[in-house]
């Protein structure tokens, strides 16, 4: 019942997103393209700029929110999200290194991805040491510790190589301002693989909500599933970070909003979360590019929205 509604919302956002921008190209031009009578400039702006930008925003939104939603169930912690696992800091480090080393876009993506996934596994490895009684918390705390360690290293790298500062800083703030089809081709397969896994195993997330023991009691191999889930959410998150930089809080805002609306059953929650985020992320991006003469980083907007939302969750749960 909620899904068709969300699909209609997505369609509206798609139309809005390719019709609105800093240039005057709007619905008429989109219509011309559909009829096949548009000129080259129109095509370039809409098909090679706005369309990949829209798709990237959708990919990033879906990746981050689906990961956040799953990680919150896995850790039974409403504040868990991809960034808490330290993946963002790992990816940022890869990106900074690639800029210093003078890599191109593709190299940056690969290095960010590689560094992000290494970080996720380091966090997972440390957090799941037998020493800790509560591994869910141990992993989160390990994530926070490693994230702050890497942030420190990142600052140091930026300080030592201040000539490339501007490029990296803008990337770090998170935006879709330089969209390329190359990025779409690179990230789309990962998105499909990651989301397929999460959607296919969403039942397990329901079982995990009662506790690891209960999930084991109904026959789920929790240790293996946790490792798989961390792998695929890392894949999704690092893909998002690699193409768009650091866009925080999406993994918290969207899943919790949907939870409030339709409850916690993940076979419904997860698809609805994905569909809300594929509408939300391009919408924020539209706002980012039309609200001022330049561009506000999308990451800044989500952080401004996300901070208070985060606090709201804290207060509501009375932690």
């Amino acid at each position, binding site marked *: 019942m909620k899904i068709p509604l969300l699909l209609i919302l997505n369609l509206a956002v798609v139309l809005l997103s390719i019709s609105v921008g800093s240039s005057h190209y709007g619905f008429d031009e989109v219509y011309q393209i559909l009829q096949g009578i548009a000129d080259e400039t129109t095509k370039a702006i809409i098909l090679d700029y706005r369309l990949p930008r829209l798709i990237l925003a959708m990919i990033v939104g879906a990746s981050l929110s689906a990961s956040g939603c799953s990680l919150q169930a896995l850790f*039974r912690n409403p504040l868990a999200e991809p960034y808490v696992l330290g993946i963002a800091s790992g990816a940022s480090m890869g990106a900074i290194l690639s800029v210093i080393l003078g890599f191109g876009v593709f190299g940056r993506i690969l290095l960010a991805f590689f560094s992000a996934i290494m970080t996720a596994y380091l966090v997972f490895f440390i957090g799941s040491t*037998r020493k800790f009684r509560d591994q869910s918390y141990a992993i989160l705390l390990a994530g926070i510790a490693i994230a702050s360690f890497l942030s420190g290293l990142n600052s140091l790298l930026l300080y030592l190589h201040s000539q490339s500062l501007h490029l990296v800083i803008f990337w770090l703030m998170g935006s879709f301002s330089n969209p390329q089809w190359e990025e779409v081709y690179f990230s789309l397969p990962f998105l499909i693989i990651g989301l397929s896994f999460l959607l*296919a*195993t969403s*039942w*397990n997330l*329901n*079982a995990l*909500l*009662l*506790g690891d*023991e*209960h999930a*084991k*009691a*109904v*026959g*789920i191999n929790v240790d293996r599933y946790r490792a798989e889930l961390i792998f695929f959410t890392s894949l999704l998150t690092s893909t998002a970070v690699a193409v768009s930089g650091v866009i925080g809080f999406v993994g918290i805002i969207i899943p919790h909003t949907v*939870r409030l609306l339709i*409850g*916690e*059953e993940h*076979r419904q929650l997860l698809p609805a979360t994905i569909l809300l985020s594929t509408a939300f992320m391009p919408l924020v991006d539209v706002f980012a590019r039309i609200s001022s003469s330049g561009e506000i980083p999308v990451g800044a907007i989500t952080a401004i929205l996300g901070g208070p939302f985060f606090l709201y969750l804290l207060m509501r749960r009375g932690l």
Partner: protein
Amino acid sequence: MRLKVDKITVKLGSSEILKDLTIEAKKGDFIALLGPNGSGKSTLLRTIFGIIKPLKGVVFFDGKEEEKGYLPQETADTNLRVIEVVLLGRTPYLGRIKSPKEKDFEIAMDALRSVGMENFADRKFSELSGGEKQKVLLARLFAQEPKILLLDEPTAHLDISAQLEIMRIIKELAGDRIVIVALHDINLAISFANCILMIKDGRIAYAGSPRNVITEESIKEVFGVEVSVKRHGQIYVIPKIKSSINGRRVHVICGGGSGKELLHLLSTEGYSVSAGVLNALDSDWEIVSEIGGMIVDAPPFSEISEDAHQRNLEAIKNSEAVILADLSIGRGNLKNLISAKYASELGKLIVVDKTPFEERNFVGQEAEKIYSEILKNATVVKSEGDALNALRKLLSR
């Protein structure tokens, strides 16, 4: 259907939790695991279920894996709806992409009905009370259609009525399944199980029917606490509370509720109390049991035997003071009056004389005569409070 746990040794980290442990169970067995925290009850259940692999030995079960049902002790809170929680019990029967069918919903609803929670199907799990949650989890367990139930302290954190309700539901729905339940309440185990395994340090210390296994010695050995085990019809266990702060020993001759106030006063003041002769299950007998006092007792509703009388005199001899409560005297307890006379001769008797003796004398002249002799050598008071004052005076001499 049979379960055999054959000489299993389980190691977690560097410590051996279970040592060479063997259990056999067959259809219809209701087994309670008793033991202090950390004795290995949970580990045993988890090993039988298959979460933990034993280092040595095997768990043999002649059924399918999914026919083992396991209810862990701790449950996280969730906003899943009740029916969604129960449906999780169907997990082993769903395909690779787990999606419940109409039949699974029916089985889940039936399970909810069997625990009396069908009207809660659409409620959020987190909004239920502790007992209701546990019933929903039992429904989850039964939706799995298990042949063996492994329950880890299903009554933990519940109030007494919920504890009984949960145990009743388990007993009722268990049918001829094998049930193995870890419990921390010995009396609950006695009431519901037909076999008790007492586990200590990863080994089975005692095994058998509640009547054979539950003794003061076995509980002292396994739990390290002093209890009294009462065997009047149903067996039950009462902890002995050692409250003798001031250590002075006082014997009370009472019965039929006449000692009620006195016994409580003495216990709160920290006296080490004994009483007798009391018929078992007399209301005074129960109070002395509660406060952990020593009782010289006789079978319910029977006359005081010579043997009990002698033990009573012994107790009087060993106490520093004796109080004769405002009790009624009949043929059955006339010997108590004789005991009181003995105490008066030793110069350590206090008599609570509230009700005129003729109103509580059902024996006649014989008792009358003994009582008047008692009064000559005793401190006579009119209330329990005064008795305590008199007691202090007597003991300070």
